[in-house]
């Protein structure tokens, strides 16, 4: 422990929380694009589902690398048995999401379907149906994973900064934002009028999500700055303390303001050059992803125990926790 940031969960868990959210959001966005466009963009479906699956598996790898006993953790039936724990619930949610996302990816990829066909014809016959069912299931579990990354922090009740349902709300919105951005990046390379219409819709969705995220962040800080001493101290670590540079520059500036401005510029059609417009979109998307990761990193590292930042909290808790019942 040093200063006002915690050093128990740092890079790996932050990357995992980000990739989990990105995977869930991107898979949901790919599902929406597929069903709303009535399968008009098979390439988006293939790339989108694979992107989500790879992101989720990569996130899982970061999670596993971070624990003290990775191989024991992989024996999930032994290591995740306490279903009162959100960590265990989340692990099973992730497992289900990986299975459905992976199956959907395989059965959406024509080349892989033809390989399946070579050794099991009847299975290949139902490829499209399997891919669709798995996509819906994957989107539901993916959304669950995205929300779970926030619930995990919320349910660690001893950290005042995290102890509010606004954290899962914030993480879910940010996950949808990152996911929709990633799918938009793929959509930008589709050349058709229908694709242009979807890019426009996705842009509107992104603007709504950015505004929602900014409002949730504002609500979070409003809550903490008007809360107990320990809440205020943790919130100030982000607003004007050790993590304020990362917070204001990368989360607010790069993650929210730049994508918002660039997306609005694009929607007003000021930029006529198609290539330039696409470049601006891609910059906005890259910025949104950087912001999404930094958001999780700063919220995670600013998560200090009340007793370690506030003497009053320490005295109060000694009595409450030791002598219950």
């Amino acid at each position, binding site marked *: 422990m040093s200063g006002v940031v915690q050093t128990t969960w740092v890079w790996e868990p932050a990357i995992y929380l980000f990739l989990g959210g990105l995977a869930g959001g991107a898979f949901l966005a790919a599902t929406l694009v597929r069903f709303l466009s009535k399968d008009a963009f098979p390439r988006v479906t293939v790339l989108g589902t694979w992107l989500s699956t790879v992101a989720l598996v990569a996130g899982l790898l970061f999670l596993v690398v971070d624990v003290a*006993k990775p191989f024991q953790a992989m024996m999930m039936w032994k290591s995740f048995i306490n279903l009162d724990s959100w960590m265990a619930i989340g692990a099973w949610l992730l497992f289900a999401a990986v299975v459905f996302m992976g199956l959907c990816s395989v059965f959406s990829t024509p080349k892989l379907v033809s390989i399946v066909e070579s050794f099991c014809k009847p299975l290949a016959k139902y490829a499209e149906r399997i891919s669709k069912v798995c996509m819906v299931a994957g989107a539901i579990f993916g959304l669950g994973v995205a929300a779970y990354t926030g619930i995990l922090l919320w349910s660690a009740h*001893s950290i005042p900064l995290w102890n509010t349902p606004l954290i899962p709300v914030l993480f879910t919105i940010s996950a949808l934002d990152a996911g929709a951005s990633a799918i938009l990046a793929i959509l930008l390379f589709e050349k058709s009028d229908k694709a242009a219409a979807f890019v426009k819709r996705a842009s509107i969705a992104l603007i709504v999500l950015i505004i929602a995220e900014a409002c949730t962040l504002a609500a979070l800080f409003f809550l903490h700055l008007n809360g107990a001493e320990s809440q205020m101290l943790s919130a100030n670590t982000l607003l004007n303390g050790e993590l304020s540079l990362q917070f204001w520059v990368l989360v607010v500036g790069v993650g929210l303001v730049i994508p918002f401005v660039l997306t609005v510029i694009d929607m007003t059609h000021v930029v006529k050059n198609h290539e330039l417009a696409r470049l601006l979109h891609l910059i906005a998307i890259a910025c949104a992803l950087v912001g999404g990761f930094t958001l999780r990193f700063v919220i995670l590292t600013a998560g200090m125990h009340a007793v370690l930042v506030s003497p009053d909290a320490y005295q109060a808790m000694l009595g409450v926790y030791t002598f219950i019942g």
Partner: protein
Amino acid sequence: MSEQLMIYCDDERCIKCYACQVACKQWHGFKAGGVSRRNVIEHTSGTFPNVTRTFSSLSCQHCAEPACASVCPAGAISKRPEDGIVVVDSDKCIGCRYCFFACPFGVPSYDDDGMNKCDMCLSLGAGEDGRPDPHCVATCPTQALYFGNESEIKEIIQEKEALRLSGRADARATMEDFA
């Protein structure tokens, strides 16, 4: 359950000498910079010239309802029914460190075997009275640490409080803390 065993730190007696922390590390054979089961902490309040520094020795409180146990995905943490000591099963623990964030005191620390925390020196064997014999308590040069069951500790705190009310001591722990 028979009575809960507990260790109590009188923060008026603690002088921040770290003897408890060192004793704990030595008896359990922990390397410097690694696992630490007991930590001396300091809180500063007020502004110059009226600054108060309070020292305390903090370790597992063996909570009545351990938050670490309820969040442990592997079910590796449990509370012994016979004396209320909260223990970790190192074979089950995967070392995810979630318990650190659930613990109100941020007590759990970690090594390659997973979570490591105070067991009131259970692992070093029982004392003459059949109870474990916490070495931090035995070592404390100012006798700021007390070990006993719940009623014994409550008696000590009540005595302190009586002294405070009679004006003979400035005990900070009050019964309101234990309501």
